[in-house]
């Protein structure tokens, strides 16, 4: 009796797995039929939930626009959303589910580099292309040839802030307060240090914390004693808001500098007025007057009643880059799709012209934003080496206007020397 049961169980399991197999290969092999299923994973309920939700909004808005315009190659796009709660092990689990169970043609996500690093091997093993909208740690795309991103990487982001600190703020001494357990934060710390010391600056104090810490006064007091001109805090908004608050309460006047990890509405609730006068590097500015960005911002606001942060813009771009690649690949065959994504050249995204380089990273300029009265105000644009600012204006709507600094937008009233800001960039070109 027992044996019969066991045999039955075995047979049913086999049938089931076979059925799964067939269903899966069906979706992948038969091009031209049915909808195109794309996976998205991100932190929707955890400590960095603002990132995941913004990106999801951007991805879904792009997918809807694509469907409204007739889909990709006449097929509708459907996005399956998974929540990883901001934890690397959960990120790996949900990506396994997306690629093995849902048989998605590509995966979009994550924002936090640690989560992308944990999940990327799953996509790579299954040979399903993954596009991270905004993980900036260089190691992410080195996981394998199926892993891409549509944002710049930390060596550049760290360099941007170091240049801005040394050239625009005339800082000689910098202190660093970084998140010890975050690949993103550690990477930025390293690249900022390298660039800043190369520019003749000096790192006078270095302190660390871990995500979830509640008190930073110990670290900030040591930093204050070193009397730095600027303090680089390459963390995520949850901690940074509190750090800014506590630095104010210790009477620290040096501005805090950060990266795209600060970009969240919640930063303002946590840090409030203490954030005024700080600077971050970011992927785009909402105040950019180019028509493409204006349209994106207006559409997003109408849809979600919120200003799109950079993560929403990158989520939007990642979906559109993917759609463009599927179109060029003529279908969803994974090897052809991978090739097509790798061939992306001068794609007109809202976060600038996107060209995927040989390391599967996007080469793009970065903007520096000043924090003032609950707003990220455009200050300057810094270009990567070898990219000339006006040259891309023909292809990129983001750089469409000759100088975003010369806009009439009310936000640009604040920064005094925006016009000169491009000079360190052009200097770096040659």
């Amino acid at each position, binding site marked *: 009796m027992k044996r019969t049961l066991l045999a039955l169980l075995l047979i049913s399991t086999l049938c089931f797995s076979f059925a799964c197999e067939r269903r899966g290969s069906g979706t992948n092999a038969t091009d031209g039929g049915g909808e195109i299923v794309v996976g998205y994973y991100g932190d929707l*309920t*955890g*400590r960095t*939930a*603002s990132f995941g939700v913004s990106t999801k909004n951007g991805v879904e808005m792009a997918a809807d626009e694509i469907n409204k315009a007739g889909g990709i190659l006449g097929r509708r796009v459907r996005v399956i959303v998974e929540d990883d*709660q901001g934890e690397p092990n959960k990120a790996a689990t949900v990506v396994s589910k997306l690629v093995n169970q849902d048989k998605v043609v590509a995966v979009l996500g994550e924002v936090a580099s640690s989560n992308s690093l944990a999940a990327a091997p799953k996509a790579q093993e299954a040979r399903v292309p993954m596009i991270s909208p905004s993980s900036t740690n260089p190691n992410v795309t080195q996981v394998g040839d199926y892993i891409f991103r549509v944002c710049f990487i930390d060596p550049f982001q760290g360099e941007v802030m170091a240049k801005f600190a040394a050239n625009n703020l005339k800082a000689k001494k910098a202190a660093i307060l970084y998140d*010890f357990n975050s690949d993103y934060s550690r990477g930025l710390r390293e690249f900022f240090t390298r660039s800043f010391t190369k520019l003749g600056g000096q790192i006078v104090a270095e*302190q*660390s*914390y*871990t995500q*979830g*810490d*509640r*008190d930073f*006064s*110990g*670290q900030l*007091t*040591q930093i*204050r*004693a070193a009397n730095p001109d600027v303090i680089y805090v390459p963390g995520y908004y*949850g*901690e940074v*808001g*509190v750090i800014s*608050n*506590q630095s*104010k*309460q*210790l*009477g620290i006047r040096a501005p805090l500098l950060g990266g795209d990890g600060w970009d969240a509405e*919640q930063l303002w*609730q*946590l*840090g*409030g*007025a*203490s954030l005024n006068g700080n600077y971050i590097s970011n992927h785009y500015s909402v105040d950019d007057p180019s028509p493409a960005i204006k349209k994106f911002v207006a559409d997003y606001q109408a849809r979600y009643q919120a200003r799109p942060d950079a993560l929403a813009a990158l989520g939007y771009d990642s979906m559109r880059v993917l759609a463009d690649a599927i179109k060029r690949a003529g279908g969803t065959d994974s090897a052809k799709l991978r090739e097509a994504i790798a061939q992306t050249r001068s794609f007109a995204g809202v976060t600038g012209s996107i060209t995927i380089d040989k390391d599967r990273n996007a080469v793009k300029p970065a903007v520096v934003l000043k924090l003032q009265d609950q707003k990220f105000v455009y200050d300057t644009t810094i270009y990567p080496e070898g990219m000339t600012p006006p040259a891309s204006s023909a292809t990129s709507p983001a750089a469409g206007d000759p100088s975003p600094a010369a806009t009439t937008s009310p936000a640009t009233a604040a920064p005094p020397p925006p016009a000169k800001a491009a000079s360190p960039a052009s200097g770096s070109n040659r």
Partner: protein
Amino acid sequence: MDTFVQQLINGLNVGAIYALIALGYTMVYGILRLINFAHGDVYMVGAFAGFYIALYAGFAAGASMVTLSVVLLGAMIIAAIVGMIIERFAYRPVRKYSRMTTLIMAIGVSLLIENLFVAQIGATPRAFPDFLGSQSQAPYRLFGNAAISKAQIVIFLVSIALMLVLQWIVYKTKVGTAMRAVSFNLNSAKLMGINTDAIISLTFAIGSALAAAAGVLTAQYNPNIDPLMGILTGLKAFVAAVLGGIGNIPGAVLGGLLIGAAETFVVGYGHHIGIASTYRDAVAFAILILVLLLRPSGLLGSTVQEKV
């Protein structure tokens, strides 16, 4: 020197919060010989109670001592009720069984509260409104670089006031006498005509109210609150109670201040002796192990353990 003084202020500031929470651990232990592991979560509940009071009463951020007092009192009352409910429905029914049962119940209650909150409102951190205006105000300068912020002053003053009130209740009132009687021997106290159930309930209420005060106060310095904020802070406060001598009220205060200071000094000066600032959380638990090995009764605990 000013850096040292500053670190001391920072450390005592963190320590005052630990002390307020440790009082709840120590009072409940004194009466029931129970480590109430759900106490750290009551601290979280207190912070969220304050957050929602401010939200629904429409208190916007902005310097106002009145709003802070209203939020603080409201949160303390809500947490006191939560504490009494936990005692009534989770601990009282199992009190007659072995102490291990109550301890496991405490762990269960703790996980239940945390997960209820995560399920209801998500793990996303919330921003507590700034009622002291400390985000835009420079601190008061003491000497050199050493300074003290408004939030820190308020945390110190309110915690000291609450501790004095507690001292007064325990040593100067009839209820306090009854509490002490129950802590000496529950059954004898019952025979003397003390309503022990009511006294135990009151002890939970007072301890929970203190934890809620800690939750609201700390949110004035660190506005980031989330449903899991009580885990680590609660454990450290527990260590503080053990360090001071569990069951001993002045000991809990001393333990809290010492743990807070130790933690901050590790961040500030640890690198001189090869300890990175990321070891701050390990320090409290290293202290716990040392105390248990060297002086199990804690700094101020009585050496006579056989009370029961």
